């Protein structure tokens, strides 16, 4: 029971990050491999604020603002000039941005991991199991954010414009949609979600280092692909699946050392059976 809860809350973290990958892919048709490092930036923002004696709420706020600014700046200066360039060039640029962010944080904060002290929220007994409150908080807030995002995309004018841009940029422009602005908004939303993820991540593993974003970034990317890259519900499903599987594997002594192998193995199996991912949409080739 507590494993399931931990798994779901880890899954919520993966899902939040996976949403950033999948939305950016859906709209800008690029894999933003620097997305994981935005989490790292967010985590350092939390770390610095708390070190400076700031309240946790302030840390959250600053983390979101800094991540959003970072995401938008990266998009404007690294990716926007490459619009229309070959996907490979964009991909390599994204990897370059990833290393750049890691190196900068290493210069500023040093390479050694630093402990972040977030007041423990303790545990509660639920259905006879001991569950950490931070898991519940992560799960609930994660679910609220995802529900909000789904509503935003479905109901608002900007959300609908995002759907239109993801399907056909040219046709979207002919509707009067400012495609560049929609891409910027998408990066901003993805980065805000990464900031939220970074806080939840720190609640589970209270330590920051420059490469902090790599592993959750890769796992969340895997989750996005499992769910079907470009699909918002897919990213949520993939993230939660991966989180639960990870925690279950870790709880079985025989499997524990192979947890990561199991996760990526799942990716391979799903790609073999259903290359577009669980909830991915088949796109008809345009004639």
């Amino acid at each position, binding site marked *: 029971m507590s494993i399931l809860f931990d798994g779901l809350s880890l899954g919520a973290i993966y899902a939040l990050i996976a949403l950033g990958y999948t939305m950016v892919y859906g709209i800008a048709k690029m894999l933003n491999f620097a997305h994981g490092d935005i989490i790292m930036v967010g985590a350092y923002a939390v770390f610095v604020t708390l070190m400076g004696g700031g309240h946790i709420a302030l840390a959250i706020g600053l983390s979101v603002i800094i991540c959003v600014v970072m995401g938008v700046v990266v998009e404007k200066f690294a990716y926007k000039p490459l619009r229309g360039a070959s996907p490979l060039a964009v991909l390599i640029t994204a990897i370059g941005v990833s290393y750049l962010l890691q190196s900068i944080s290493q210069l500023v904060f040093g390479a050694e991991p630093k402990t972040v002290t977030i007041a423990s929220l303790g545990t509660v007994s639920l259905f006879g199991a001991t569950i950490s409150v931070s898991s519940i908080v992560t799960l609930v807030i994660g679910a609220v954010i995802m529900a909000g995002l789904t509503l935003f995309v479905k109901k608002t004018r900007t959300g*609908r414009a995002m759907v239109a841009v993801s399907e056909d940029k040219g046709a979207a422009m002919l509707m*009067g949609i400012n495609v560049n602005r929609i891409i910027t908004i998408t990066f901003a939303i993805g980065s805000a979600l990464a900031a939220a993820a970074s806080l939840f991540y720190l609640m589970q593993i209270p330590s920051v280092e420059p490469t902090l974003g790599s592993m959750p970034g890769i796992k969340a990317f895997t989750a996005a692909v499992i769910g079907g890259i470009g699909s918002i519900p897919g990213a949520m499903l993939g993230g939660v699946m991966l989180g639960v599987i990870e925690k279950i594997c870790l709880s079985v002594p025989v499997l524990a050392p192979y947890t990561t192998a199991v996760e990526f193995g799942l990716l391979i199996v799903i790609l073999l059976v259903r290359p577009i991912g669980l909830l991915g949409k088949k796109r008809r080739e345009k*004639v």
Partner: protein
Amino acid sequence: MALLEVKNLQVNYGVIRAIKGISFEVNEGEIVSLIGANGAGKTTTMQSIMGLIPIKDGTVTYDGKVINKIPGHKLISMGMSQVPEGRRVFQELTVYENLVMGAYTQKDKKKIKEDIEEICTRFPRLGERKNQIAGTLSGGEQQMLAMGRAMMSHPKLLMLDEPSMGLSPLLVDQVFDIIKDYHKMGTTVLLVEQNAKKALSISDRAYVLETGDITISGKGEDLLNNEQVKKAYLGE
């Protein structure tokens, strides 16, 4: 005064000059056609006017303003609208949602609802299929939807790129009837067509585009009787 004036338009695809410096104009209240064979540059011309592909040289003036440098999405609220080649309706959205997208530049929600009602009356097939996913519509229905969607922004200048492409003769007639309707309602029309006969028969004026150059121009009815046009485009 011309509503749309294209002067010495040049468009390159890499090193290939697709449009070699063409000039034409569309006056307010007219239906003007660009006709020509496959690969003549008709769609390229249409897309470059809307900023979908960059212009190498020349000027495009709309309503007295040079619009070369204006981002394409701003042209919609200036009263230009285009039905692109291949319809390009949003396949994953419903008919209704497609029409709402067409009204992206419109603010008045009540008016948008009325406009959608009006379009559903004009195109009963769309009315019946309001909540159907657009990707599941037939080609003809998608063309109707694309035309309805383009009218949601209340354009002064409606540009249609190959609206009859891939449609049965009956549907082609319907499409042209709708174009005439919209024209009667006061919309200026720029039409790109391979179906030269149909296009010329409803056009005030027309231009013949051949491998990136305008070779013949004149009144629609004159071109219908022009020997060269007859031979090359009307199959007579």
